[in-house]
């Protein structure tokens, strides 16, 4: 597959924001794939964790922000602690979610979440953490 890498995309404002918010330098990653090997959510992802950061490195931020991956990540911290380069991919995933959430684009509705939680005795921490991670 031919991919065109464009200068203005690589250093786009949004990628710089992602780096700023996550506090991480995306160019530290050398694509070993260890993050993806250990990610418990990899099965459910359309872009593997190492592909997420690769796309950011080459300026394909839309592919990342439109992916399912950033919303199935459960912030388990495995990618970060196992990365041989110490890349905090966990925070990069969070920053990518925030790019959408901060436009007031919630991924779950409060009402539906509460309604679903009433059908079973869902623990309070599940409700709060879901809302913290998927709404703004």
């Amino acid at each position: 597959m031919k991919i065109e890498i464009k200068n203005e995309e690589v250093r786009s404002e949004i990628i710089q924001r992602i780096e700023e918010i996550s506090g991480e330098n995306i160019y530290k990653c050398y694509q070993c794939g260890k993050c993806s090997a250990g990610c418990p959510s990899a099965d459910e992802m359309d872009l593997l964790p190492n592909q997420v950061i690769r796309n950011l490195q080459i300026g394909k931020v839309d592919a990342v922000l439109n992916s399912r991956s950033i919303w199935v990540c459960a912030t388990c911290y495995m990618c970060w602690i196992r990365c041989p380069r110490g890349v905090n991919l966990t925070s990069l995933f969070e920053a990518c979610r925030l790019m959408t959430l901060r436009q007031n684009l919630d991924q779950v509705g409060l009402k539906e979440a509460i309604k679903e939680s009433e059908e079973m005795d869902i623990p309070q921490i599940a409700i709060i953490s879901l809302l913290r991670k998927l709404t703004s």
Partner: protein
Amino acid sequence: MEVSYFPGCTLKQTARNFEISAISSCKLLGLDLTELSRWNCCGTVYSLSTDDSMHHLAPIRNLIRVQEDGFKEVVTLCSMCYNTLKQANELMKKEPDRLKKMNDFMYREEDYIPDVEVYHLVTYIKERLGYEKVRELVKQPLTGLKVAVYYGCLLLRPDSIKLDDRENPMIMEDLLTALGAEIIDYPFSNECCGSYHTLGQKEIVLNRTNKLITEARRDGADVLVLSCPECDFNLDHRQKDTLEKYPNFQTMPVLYFTQLLNIALGGNLEDCGFELNYIDPLPVLREKGIIK
């Protein structure tokens, strides 16, 4: 010994069995868990963005309460509370400018001085009493009970808060060994249960529960032991839906470590709150002769 204790919301609601068994077993260990006179929800997840201080207010407010009550240490049980309180505390120690900003924001509170230490109960027991002392206090050894220990994510990651080695933790295993249980080598002990996706993306959790419990069975465990009401919901209560999705799935009792601690120390069965466990652990405990 009086110990300042932060329960968190879930231990007052769906995970009451975790709280009552902890209070009872601590009493038997000579630890008096003293609930903070005031506290609020910790926020459950630590905010990972560099520009967000707002979400650190909730955990730090709780640490101010510890200060107000005259303590220098606080013990908690829930993995999510532990992780959030501890990560926020570590941040305050590292970033004085941010601490100042937050103290200014909470101008009606006393200033937070970041020298409170956040403990998980298991570390507290290990460091303050030592497992030898625990072993001496055992009245009903858990002999013959094969236990898989499940830590999940938030007791081991990230590095700033880890209870023990993050890939090969033993702190919980050593406690259960002191109680007489047999520890099973369980390779998924630090895998993620799917966490909050249990709401909204339940399928993710059902796949994990199937994988994690099936592996524990294959490894020969009788029960799975953990320390988080979120993991507990996913790995115990979600076994109902897991069985519907995977008809060959074999269920397994899942217990809080404090429930086994309470039994081993000779505490009352009522103080285990087993009626809140979904898969009933009583048959296997009876079969092993651990309870009557």
